[in-house]
Every structure is written in structure tokens, then in C-alpha cells.
């Protein structure tokens, strides 16, 4: 398997994972993947990377930070403590 083909594929991987490539390109990629273990691992792990990030817990704004923001903006009278 030509190294060039793998490198070419690498550029297309995000559009491929995001479903943004044409049917022709998609078929080409899948053909290559069926022959190339390297690229298959690459796709699997890239997809997993995206998945892990999309599903990771998001940091929250701490309550005191929120309170200080209200204060800074002169909006203290509108501050409502967050129900926990």
C-alpha cells in the first residue's frame, strides 16, 4: 500500500468522519481501509477521540464566580443563588 495514499487519506479523515465527503470519496476511503491496517487503526482511534471529547463532562462556573460577575456588572440585586 502506497504511503502517499495513506497520507492523502489522512487529510480526508475529518470530512469522512463528519459525513462530508462524496459517495465516491467515501467508497475510495473504505476500499483503502479494508486493505490498510494502519489507516483502519487511525480511523478507529480518531473516531474514539472525537467521541470521548464530545461526551466528557463540561466544567461548570463556580457559584462564587457567578456571584462576582453579577457584582462586577452592578447586577447584584438580580443575583439568585443556584438551586443545588
Amino acid at each position: 500500500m502506497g504511503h502517499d495514499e495513506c497520507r492523502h487519506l489522512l487529510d480526508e479523515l475529518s470530512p469522512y468522519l463528519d459525513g462530508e465527503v462524496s459517495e465516491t470519496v467515501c467508497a475510495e476511503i473504505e476500499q483503502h481501509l479494508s486493505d490498510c491496517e494502519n489507516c483502519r487503526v487511525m480511523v478507529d482511534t480518531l473516531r474514539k477521540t472525537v467521541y470521548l471529547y464530545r461526551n466528557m463532562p463540561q466544567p461548570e462556573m463556580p457559584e462564587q464566580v457567578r456571584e462576582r460577575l453579577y457584582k462586577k456588572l452592578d447586577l447584584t440585586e438580580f443575583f439568585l443563588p443556584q438551586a443545588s
Partner: protein
Amino acid sequence: MSDAITEEDLLERIRNGDQAACALCIELYGTQVYRLALRLMKNEADAEDVMQETFLNAYKSIDKFEGRSGLSTWLYRIAYNAAMMRLRRPSPYTLSIDETLQQDSPLTVPKQLFDWCCLPEKDFETSEVREFLEESIQELPEKLRVAFILRELEGLSTQESADALGISADAVKKRLHRGRLWLRERLSDYFVEQQIPG
């Protein structure tokens, strides 16, 4: 945006100096602004400053908001600019490695072959992994980082991200792709290391 009030109404009220509307705006968008600031600034104190500056600037310049992009996108843009201003302030102690990274150099095919994607699910759910994921974002080169955050973590579309960053949609796509590849490499190193019995 809640059903109770449209973005247009909210803007109108903020423009008229309605403080309750300003407070509502914080409730709607404060957390997302804070998250972006935190991931760009890498510490809570600076993130808080950036967030405060973002809302101060937003309310001050609300008349300049044209509504081409949504209010949320506009706030991201202000926050991003505020963060960049701070990060670019020259400091004798920090040296930005971002500038030295050649972001347009051709991609190289990684040699990393371990297929860690199918490890047991519990291996991904530890707090250590979560911390590693978060730390890795913060180590991404700046331009890749912000594109990755907006697209992948904040769920903006390509066009919204482009509007927030003032770059083309194509550039967003490239940066997102490079960001993903960069993070994949890091995670590969991490999970390979985890497999070595010690």
C-alpha cells in the same frame, strides 16, 4: 434561548438598559463564556477576568451587535479576543510555543498502531482519563485549540465558529482536523503507556 423570550427581545431590552435582561443573558450564556475562557487561559483567576471583561464589553458595545451571527457566537468572539489580548501581553516569563509550531506543514502519517479504541469502556471512565482529556486540550496549539473547543465541545457549527474567530469556514475545518489528529496522538501515547504493565 428559552421559549419565553426571543433573542431579539432580549437584545432590545439590553439595549434599553434593562438590568434584568442583562442578568438573564448571564444565565443563558455565562457558563459557556466561562468554559471557553477557562480552556484558553488555563487558570480560573484569568478565566474569571476574561469572562467579566466579555460581559462588560458586550453590554458596552451592544449597539454595535449586528445580529448577523447569534448573540452566543458574538459573546464567544468577544471572549476569544479578550483572552487573546491577555495571552499576547508580553511577559518575560512565558514564551509562546504556538508561534513556532508550523501549522501548515504537511501532515505526516503517524506510526502509532495500537488500536486503543476498543478498550473496555471502564478504562475511559476514570477521573484520571477525564483529567488527561482536559489537560490535553489546554496543551493544544492555540489556534487549533480554540477551533476544537468551539466545534467539538461547545457544539458550534463550522460557520458559527468561523464567525466567532473571524476566519474562513475552510480554516475552521483545517484547524479542527489538525486539532483532532493532535489529540489522537496524545491519547494514543497515553493509552499505550497504560497498557504497559508496571
